[in-house]
């Protein structure tokens, strides 16, 4: 279902997901599902754990012991399930599943193999998909325990070209040939920016929360300054530090996966570049993704993609990125206010929002020196 269509669905204040809780026997349900899908005699699930990372979809990690006759195999999985309420509601997991199913395991793109999806609420209570668990840790866009940056110099220097390469590979996917045109081609000119702005403006309006004047003014600025592009690519939508899987450190550091594909669609590739460079994800450093200066990141991307990283267009998406994050936080705040979630993490956005409004002022160039 296209996002705009999904957004037009009325929001059920009692919660769009009314299935009975099934988490008490989640492991048994996963065992039955996997045994059926894999044609196994038995599947045993162990180490089932709900991940604390990720504020949107629910993520569960687990190990499966798959038995067929005398043979047995261990496989690591991540189950992504639609949340009871969340930051990107209303949810529809199917488009991202179809993209992950098509691209998973492909060299360069680093998307996890994602074989299974079900919208049947009888299985896990809500829609879900299963993907293979990739090796690695998820560095956060925040200072480390010692207050230092997420990466040392050698690690960030090793990772920067790999992250750039993954973004270039994603943007190079021939989405028509891969059958991904169901995502909806916005078309040439200003349409990509216009469609994307409409989506996030609708999300903001959907919350029914009062607009801060600076947000109102920035939405108008975005409408009045829509950039043009005739080059439509796959856009990850949340390509940034916090969604990267990494192994090793120093010169041995390797990017092993790119996660959280729920905002994937067709659009302007520079939107991903700006989002990844945004001050939100610099982990207390001056660097895009805590790795490399925003200018160097843009230059590296432009060189490897063979695509102009137009500074004016990037600035537009810088402002858009902050507005998008504000929209996400307002959505979480709304879910909390409606009592549709008992996840208190939704409430913390209420006091994170002023930082975002200040960042918006800085990104608009009104707080000189506030941003690197």
């Amino acid at each position: 279902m296209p996002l705009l269509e999904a957004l037009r669905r009325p929001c059920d204040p009692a919660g769009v997901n009314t299935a009975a809780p099934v988490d008490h026997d989640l492991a048994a349900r996963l065992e039955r599902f996997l045994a059926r899908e894999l044609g196994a005699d038995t599947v045993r699930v162990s180490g089932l754990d709900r991940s604390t990372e990720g504020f949107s979809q629910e993520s569960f990690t687990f190990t499966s012991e798959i038995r067929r006759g005398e043979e047995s195999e261990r496989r690591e999985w991540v189950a992504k399930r639609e949340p009871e309420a969340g930051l990107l509601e209303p949810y529809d997991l199917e488009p991202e599943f179809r993209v992950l199913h098509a691209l998973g395991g492909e060299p360069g793109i680093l998307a996890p193999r994602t074989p299974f999806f079900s919208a049947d609420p009888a299985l896990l209570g809500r829609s879900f998909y299963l993907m293979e668990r990739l090796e690695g840790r998820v560095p956060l866009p925040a200072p480390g325990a010692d207050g230092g940056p997420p990466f040392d110099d050698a690690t960030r220097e090793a990772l920067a070209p790999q992250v750039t390469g993954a973004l270039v590979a994603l943007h190079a996917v021939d989405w028509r040939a891969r059958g991904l045109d169901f995502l909806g081609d916005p078309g040439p000119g200003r349409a990509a920016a216009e469609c994307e702005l409409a989506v996030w403006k609708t999300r903001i309006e959907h919350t029914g929360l009062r607009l801060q004047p600076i947000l109102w003014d920035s939405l108008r600025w975005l409408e009045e300054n829509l950039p043009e592009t005739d080059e439509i690519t796959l856009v990850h939508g949340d390509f940034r530090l916090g969604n990267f899987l990494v192994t090793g450190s120093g010169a041995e550091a390797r990017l092993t996966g790119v996660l959280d594909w729920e905002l994937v669609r067709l659009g302007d590739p520079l939107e991903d570049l700006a989002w990844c460079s945004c001050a939100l994800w610099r982990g207390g450093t001056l660097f895009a993704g805590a790795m490399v200066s925003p200018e160097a990141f843009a230059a590296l991307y432009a060189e490897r993609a063979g695509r102009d990283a137009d500074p004016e267009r990037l600035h537009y998406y810088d402002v858009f990125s902050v507005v998008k994050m504000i929209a996400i936080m307002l959505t979480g705040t709304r879910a909390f206010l409606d009592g549709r979630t008992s996840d208190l993490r939704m409430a913390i956005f209420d006091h994170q929002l002023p930082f975002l409004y200040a960042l918006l002022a800085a990104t608009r160039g009104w707080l000189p020196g506030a941003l690197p």
Partner: protein
Amino acid sequence: MIPPEKLIDGAMRTLRERVLPDVGSSFARGQAYAVIDVLNNLRDRVEIKRAFAEADALAASQALDGVAAALREAGDASAAATLEAAVAEAASGSPEARAEALRRSVIDALAALPDHPEAAREPARNALRGYLVSQAIRDVAPLKPSMLSEISRGEASETSPGEA
């Protein structure tokens, strides 16, 4: 902004539904119930400090006065009078209601900028922009360092700001 009683209700609900079921030690469970008891008795005794709304209302009315002055200077007395009337109308009521009404007037003033006489646009825009920046800084000032890292990891950091 989420009203404080809503935040406290949410914190109590989270403790009951998300935390207590996973707390094994009876002493720790007793402590969690004590936190709920404290919060439950706090919820009807707290309110947002009025000084925040008063400062916001003052800054917004000064910005709108600046816009009105720019309009008068540019010869649009009628638009200036409309704006001044909106500021005067917002003068009564609680600081929260005043701040809310004046924020709406700021948005109206931003929307009207393209219709103003050329000479008034730049000074009016500067007055309003000054308010937007001051509001952003004012709202950030009382906030505590983020614990997003701890929240995301589910672990305390060595320098947890919550203990500062």
